[in-house]
């Protein structure tokens, strides 16, 4: 296996951030990211719709092997240098069912989580913008001059 295609939801902030994080990690197997909504994904995987990629993350190998949900995450970790050991641990049946459940819950609520993430990002941006303006200085007459 030389390449793993990760089909993610580009309309969800959580998924976009996860993609960026995965992309930054050193990997044994190259990860290629495709938004499942993109025409390229449809073109490369004609049977993609039947897999219902909008439900949970889908990972497809260059040979066409498919993993979805918790198993897809285990495969993503397996591709990474620093997390392969964790993926082997997570693949144990006891932990895997837990991982599956967690992924189901996160996927079902991903837009809600993304909303919070966006809000946090907006606050941070606003704070940085406000820092650019100097604080209002008080004049001798007792009133404050605003910029």
């Amino acid at each position: 296996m030389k390449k793993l295609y990760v089909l993610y939801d580009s309309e969800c902030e959580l998924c976009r951030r996860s993609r960026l994080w995965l992309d930054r990690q050193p990997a044994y197997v190259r990860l290629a990211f495709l938004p499942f909504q993109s025409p390229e994904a449809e073109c490369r995987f004609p049977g993609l719709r039947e897999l219902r990629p909008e439900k949970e993350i889908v990972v497809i190998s260059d040979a066409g092997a498919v993993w979805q949900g918790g198993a897809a995450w285990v495969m993503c970790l397996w591709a990474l240098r620093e997390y392969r050991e964790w993926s082997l641990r997570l693949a144990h049946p006891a932990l895997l069912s837990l991982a599956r459940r967690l992924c189901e819950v996160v996927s079902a609520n991903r837009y809600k989580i993304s909303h919070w993430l966006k809000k946090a990002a907006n606050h941070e941006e606003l704070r940085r913008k406000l820092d650019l303006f100097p604080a209002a200085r008080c004049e001798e007459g007792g009133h404050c001059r605003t910029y």
Partner: protein
Amino acid sequence: MNYIVATYALYLAISVALTIWVARTLHKNGRLFLVDAFHGNEALADSINHLLVVGFYLMNIGYVSLALKYGDKAADLAGLLEALSTKVGAVLLILGGMHFFNLYVFSKMRRRALLQGAPPPLPPQAYTPVVE
């Protein structure tokens, strides 16, 4: 005085001999393990093996020389044997500790090397056609 000097001489001889024996054993039997840990790169494994043995000699002989003057001073033959036994026992424990530490480091390296070739942990759930 004679007993003390005899303790020191015996202690040095036994400790250094033990250190050499352990180092040789490690050097001989650790090689295969290291070759496996370094993905079959024999030149690198030999180099690391040699460097490890040098470090091992330095640490152990250093400890043996530093610890020479500590412990009970023997006044008779029984005292000599006791002091000698205590000192050599300490050296053996340190050698054992170093040995297990080395094994731990090697096995960690080996596990990492094995991880690289590990097959996917989960079987595919389905197959789909791929257009290249």
